């Protein structure tokens, strides 16, 4: 698989080539067992930010490069030799580590991360397995993992440095710096008296995706006393666009509780 990574101004950042496995050819019970992989709950993200801002702890955002290659496979998985690799005929390759495209790749990565971070006495929260915490005499550490993105916060600044070093030893990490501005598509703005969480760019992209850029603004999200019944109107011929728009609206409820009820009624 080849891809050209571009920067926001359209210039080329780097060329990317990646070997992927044909995950669609895998059979359940033979090539993979479980594929479920936990990600942090959005409530955890908001709670962490709300607590963090009152305690004035430093936030660090990091991401993991080539995330899924870190996963170790429990199952025996074989692939055809990659193009350009010469070996004897009728031979196949056995995978030791996960490849992108494999059904169990996200799960294998989470298991590997869990194993690594627990070596540092971090424990995963009983309510959100992607939220890890550690308490020492120097302070409290909170680490929140969302696939390959993570935010780390603590009142112990030396401890954070050590934690970063530890992570860099085990995985290829990219340090996105101490100021959180963008996480999972959420825009985070810090002020002296607090922080502001919004999805302005996501929302404006949604408005143009729906082709409503030049439309009149509504002051309420729903007409009063509207009840949907299965008899009104007619069935949509093609629900693809509808589903896409509703999916985007569901994601928009992450910072907009005012549309939570209406979005629930149309989803």
């Amino acid at each position, binding site marked *: 698989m080849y891809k050209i990574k571009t920067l926001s101004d359209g210039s080329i950042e780097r060329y990317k080539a990646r070997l992927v496995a044909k995950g669609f050819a895998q059979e359940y019970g033979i090539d993979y067992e479980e594929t479920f992989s936990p990600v942090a709950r959005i409530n955890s993200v908001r709670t962490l930010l709300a607590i963090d*801002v009152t305690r004035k702890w430093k936030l660090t955002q990091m991401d993991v490069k080539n995330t899924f290659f870190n996963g170790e496979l429990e199952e025996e998985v074989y692939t055809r030799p990659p193009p350009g690799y010469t070996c004897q005929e009728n031979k196949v390759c056995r995978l030791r580590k996960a490849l992108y495209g494999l059904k169990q790749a996200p799960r294998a990565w989470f298991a590997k991360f869990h194993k690594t971070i627990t070596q540092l006495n971090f424990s995963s929260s009983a309510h959100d397995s992607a939220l890890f915490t550690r308490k020492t005499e120097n302070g409290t550490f909170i680490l929140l993992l969302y696939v390959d993105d993570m935010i780390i916060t603590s009142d112990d600044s030396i401890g954070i440095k050590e934690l970063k070093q530890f992570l860099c030893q085990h995985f290829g990490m990219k340090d996105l710096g101490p100021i959180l501005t963008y996480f999972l598509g959420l825009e985070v703005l810090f002020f002296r008296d607090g922080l502001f969480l919004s999805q302005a760019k996501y929302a404006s992209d949604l408005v143009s995706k729906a082709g409503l850029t030049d439309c009149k603004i509504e002051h309420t999200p729903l007409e009063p006393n509207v009840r949907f019944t299965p008899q009104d*109107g007619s069935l949509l011929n093609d629900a693809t666009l509808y589903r896409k728009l509703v999916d985007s609206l569901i994601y928009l409820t992450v910072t907009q509780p005012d549309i939570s009820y209406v979005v*629930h009624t149309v989803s």
Partner: protein
Amino acid sequence: MTSPRTTHYAAVLRIIRYIKGTLFYGLHYSTTSPLILRAYSDVDWAGDPSDRRSTTGFCIFLGDSLISWRSKKQTLVAHSSTEAEYHALADTTSEILWLR
């Protein structure tokens, strides 16, 4: 989502037109907020005329910061508004327990 109709689609477009006016709305978390949990819950008893099920709404604040909320249709038909409120409280409580 399973069988959307033209009426649903019209509602979706209306929500997006509303969004257009609220692009810069968001959540504000204050540095001076106390760390106390407060929760509010409500229900519209038998709000859906076709299946008589009620919808729960709740929101949970940590001090002044809104951290969790949901609007969710109850899975069973409540026979009284008290029963509907009771289910709403139970759902809200389980969310509070989770947050603690």
